[in-house]
């Protein structure tokens, strides 16, 4: 049944492209991201970068002369009904080979079982590894942040040895909760017990009361379990409330460029692992940053880099499963992928057996508003 529809899809594509050589084919990638609604700040830069990546790949005849990638990009408004509809459509109508999904891990967990029914691979950057357990068709583009936090925790134990560690995290976001556990767990095991544990909501902006409370506890280190802009604001308000300017800050890969931009001088001395480093001199990164700036009139952020990298991985998987790529082949290709070119971390993306990829993120520290490798 599916074989037939696949065949029909190819015939249809052939009919549309009737004037081209017979070998020419279109391979569809579907992008299902939140372009409106509260998570649009993630979805829009991702979708922008996806579009740019597809155009670049097609311009360079990445899949071979005459072949091209067709992008179907849709807005799910971070809404269950819509994402379910769009995934079904991607699989059954657009005959997409792979879906580039959204960043909301709760939603990804919710729709992962649907991927089993539809038998279509989806790759996205959910904040936790949890969706992996729900479906073999779900893949992660970024390393799960819990795992990125582990080297950071080790670094803190070995080098910083915080005596008065305060932890703050978003209590209504599972990613923040898991990251906090991944960080505080190893430290507590080594005897570095927190002197304060506070929670916030991801919609909070006013940390006046919290900051005053934390400042009164006189911490020498703070764990920031928050998104980039929110974490930066938190730091600014902490310092305004009287937290020492020498305080050491810890955070996750999520912090990235926005954190530095919003936080300015206040976020010096932040230790974090990083997904996208806008200071990277890797030629692909440089080209990506220039092209993105030119096309969208704003420098790329973490999310844009994720979207771009997803597309690179998806395209590479299609290429690896030529000729006649199928969804199973694409999934296999990603499962076996080694050293794919991306703009994350060190620039080379490798899938691992536990389906959590590696791309050489390292512990970085902010000095003069720039992330540099921590010594």
């Amino acid at each position, binding site marked *: 049944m599916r074989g037939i529809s696949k065949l029909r899809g190819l015939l249809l594509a052939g009919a549309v492209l009737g004037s081209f050589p017979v070998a020419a084919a279109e391979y569809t990638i579907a992008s299902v991201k939140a*372009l409106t609604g509260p998570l649009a700040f993630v979805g829009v830069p991702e979708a922008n970068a996806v579009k740019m990546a597809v155009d670049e790949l097609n311009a360079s005849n990445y899949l071979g002369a005459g072949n091209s990638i067709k992008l179907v990009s849709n*807005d799910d408004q971070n809404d269950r009904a819509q994402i379910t509809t769009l995934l079904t459509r991607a699989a*059954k*109508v657009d005959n997409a080979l792979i879906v580039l999904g959204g960043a909301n891990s*709760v939603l990804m*967990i*919710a729709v992962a079982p649907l991927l089993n029914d539809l038998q279509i691979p989806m790759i996205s950057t959910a904040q936790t590894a*949890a969706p992996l357990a*729900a479906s073999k068709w779900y893949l992660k583009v970024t390393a799960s942040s819990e795992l990125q936090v582990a080297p950071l925790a080790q670094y803190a134990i070995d080098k910083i040895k915080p005596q008065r560690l305060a932890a703050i995290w978003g209590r209504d976001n*599972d990613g923040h909760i898991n990251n906090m556990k991944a960080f505080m767990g190893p430290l507590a095991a080594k005897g570095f017990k927190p002197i304060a544990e506070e929670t916030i909501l991801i919609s909070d902006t006013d940390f006046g009361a919290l900051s005053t409370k934390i400042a009164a506890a006189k911490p020498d280190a703070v764990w920031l379990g928050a998104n980039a802009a929110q974490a930066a604001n938190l730091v600014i308000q902490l310092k305004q409330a009287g937290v020492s300017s020498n305080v050491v800050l810890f955070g996750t890969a999520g912090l990235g460029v926005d954190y530095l931009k919003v936080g300015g001088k206040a976020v010096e001395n932040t230790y974090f692992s990083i997904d996208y480093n806008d200071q990277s001199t890797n030629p692909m990164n440089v080209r990506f940053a220039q092209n993105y700036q030119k096309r969208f009139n704003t420098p790329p952020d973490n999310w844009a880099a994720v979207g771009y990298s997803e597309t690179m991985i998806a395209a590479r998987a299609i290429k690896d499963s030529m000729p006649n790529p199928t969804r199973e082949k694409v999934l296999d290709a990603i499962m076996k992928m080694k050293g794919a070119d991306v703009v994350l971390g060190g620039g080379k993306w490798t899938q691992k057996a536990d389906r959590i990829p590696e791309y050489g993120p390292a512990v970085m520290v902010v000095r003069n508003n720039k992330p540099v490798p921590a010594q």
Partner: protein
Amino acid sequence: MMNLVYTYQPLFDYFLLAVGFAYSQQMVLRAGVFSIGSAGFASIGAYFVAIVVKDHGMNAIVALLIATLLGCVGGFLLSIPLARLRGVFQAIATLAFVQIVVSLCLYFDELTGGPQGFNNIPKLVGTWHLLAAVLVTIYFMYVISRSAIGRAFDALRQDETVGATLGISIRKYHMIAFVLSGALAGFFGGMQSLYTFSIEPEMFGFTFLVAALTYIILGGRGTVTGPIIGALIMSVLPELARPLADNRQFFQGILMMVMIAFMPHGVFDGLVLHLRKRRAAARDKLFKEAH
């Protein structure tokens, strides 16, 4: 072609769920109770079913029945303190109730899974189950609306004092409305649990409540067809607006304003009223010509 139909199947499923919640919301509004507590009962039903079916292996039908009962009890309990309040005050009190349920679901994360939600719920409900549930609900809504209860609700909504002086016990009928509304919300909350693999606290928060209210006010408060139309509009609207890409929300917003401006009673109820007036006018004309 068949594939295109398949594509819209999930949309149809969510539409059916929306109709269920819409009826829960309509039940109270129809009786003149401005409660927006349905979200809270749906949450209770959904979590109950999810937990007992997945963790304790309870039979799904039994679980759904208990969820319905929980909704009844919840509605009954909430109706007692709210009997004194009316209008916006009732709305805000029930909003507080919904927010309390959400924050408790976040707080007791060992039971509910907290913000990560309660996941890997077995999917035991499909389109046909939902369709059957909605059809049965429509039957009940129709029967109730044709019964003395329905007439009492209509009377209380339009003028409570008149209703009371005609022998309608406000307290009793408001309580009935709360109980029925809670039952529907609890039941469809449970259905949603068994349909969507996973639930999370915010699913039953402010957005849910605004959506349920929108279905009714847009569709109509006084008829059985109204909520179906309202849910249909709100389910199809995002799809219709899809080609507008970035401007989707703007378009949705404008359309909501326009519809309410032209049909302040709701699209369907407005239509019924309009037809009634036209028919009355036509009959008047005939009568005058005859005399």
